[in-house]
């Protein structure tokens, strides 16, 4: 299974959960997340995420 993961801390974006605290509604596709959104765990920018095999 492939997921978007923050390479600075290992946090994984789950589309069905979104990131409500970061104002990303559940179900939001990765492509629709704004570029200035930050990783909720470590604060890295979206650009620091990579698609990885879990």
């Amino acid at each position, binding site marked *: 299974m492939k997921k978007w*993961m923050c*390479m*600075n*801390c*290992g946090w*994984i974006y789950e589309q069905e959960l979104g990131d*409500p*605290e970061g104002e990303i509604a559940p179900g939001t596709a990765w492509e629709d997340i704004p570029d200035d959104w930050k990783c*909720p*765990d*470590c*604060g*890295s920018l979206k650009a620091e995420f990579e698609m*990885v*095999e*879990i």
Partner: protein
Amino acid sequence: MTIMPRLEDLEDKSFDPFLVEKLSTGDCPDPYPRIHELREQGSVVEASYRKQFTDVPDVQMGHLPQVMVLGYDAVMKVLTQPEIFTNKEAFENNLGKSFGNTITVMDAPIHTRYRKIFQKAFLPQVVAKWGESVVDPVVNRLMEKFIDRGEADLIEEFTHHYPFQVIYAQVELEPSQAPVFHKLAIAQILSSIGAPQGPEASTKLGKFFGELLVEKRKNPGPDLISHLATVEADGERLPDDVLISFLRQLMNAGGDTTFRGTSVLLTGLLTHPEQLAAVTADRSLIPQAIDEALRWEGPVTSTFRYAAQDTEIDGHPIKKGTIINTVLASANRDPAKFENPDKFDIFRSRGTRHLAFASGPHLCIGQHLARVEMTRALGAILDKLPNLRLDPDKPPPAIKGHLLRVPEHLWVKFDR
């Protein structure tokens, strides 16, 4: 084949770092009433966290101006504004003395560069593989020693050893060297109370790791140390001082905290038998049990940051040069965020993240490994120790310490 360097013991063989460490972290049975009292005064209180609980002086930080940050949102603000609240000045005179030039003592941009290289070796998909190959054999070996007895002290016989043995396995340390390794790992943090054995242990561990890196570069294998010794980023290897410092810290950050976290997890479940029964019946509850244990009694109650400029937190002015005691334990029991915060409840809403691993760029690098270790350890205990319960003939577990929390004993009985 790797020729394993020899570790040198402390000169004073009678010195017991475990006992001294217990004295320095204190035997405070419950810091939370005082923490709640302080938070009620405001999210920022001018004082040092340590001084609330002990008269043992902090020889490295005690003379500096300090505030405690106690509210969840205020703690989060400190942890996620690294350009204002920095690490270097906060840690160079304590952890920096013990471990050296570790990433905890760095700020951006150098921190960002090295952190990413280290984190790569501890990403979830990497450490998940260690569960079966490294953690399970350690857990099984330790449990074999008491599984036929029907009773055990899970602290003395299990949790106090397994995370360290996972690290020994990564380092490929022979069992005969393990006791000295464990002793030096604990002794090195005693620099904070001025014990001469602190720097002595740091030097001896540094020499050992330096020699080990030379060996691993000659004969690299699939292990963690070989990976770190040879990994390159932008065509550059990790400098030896950064790598050796990281390995020194790994023993404490990866060993000691997981020992405490697992001990607290088992204590929480054993003192709440209905929740233990629920997890026993449904192992998919293990992740939320781990998170609740870390929120309820996180192993590290407070960490530091340094105000690099004049600023404010919740309207409270903070002068440049102030040491910020960032009280994670207070954030994790802030009633504004967690209902009935003193209650251990694995079924509580997980809407708000706990801060046991901190937050922001210095978030615990080993959190995924810690979760794998705790999951494997708890799973094995539930599988192999049926009808697990507290030993009614022994004192119940008592979690102690104002800075680092753990029970000394966890006496249990189980069916054979």
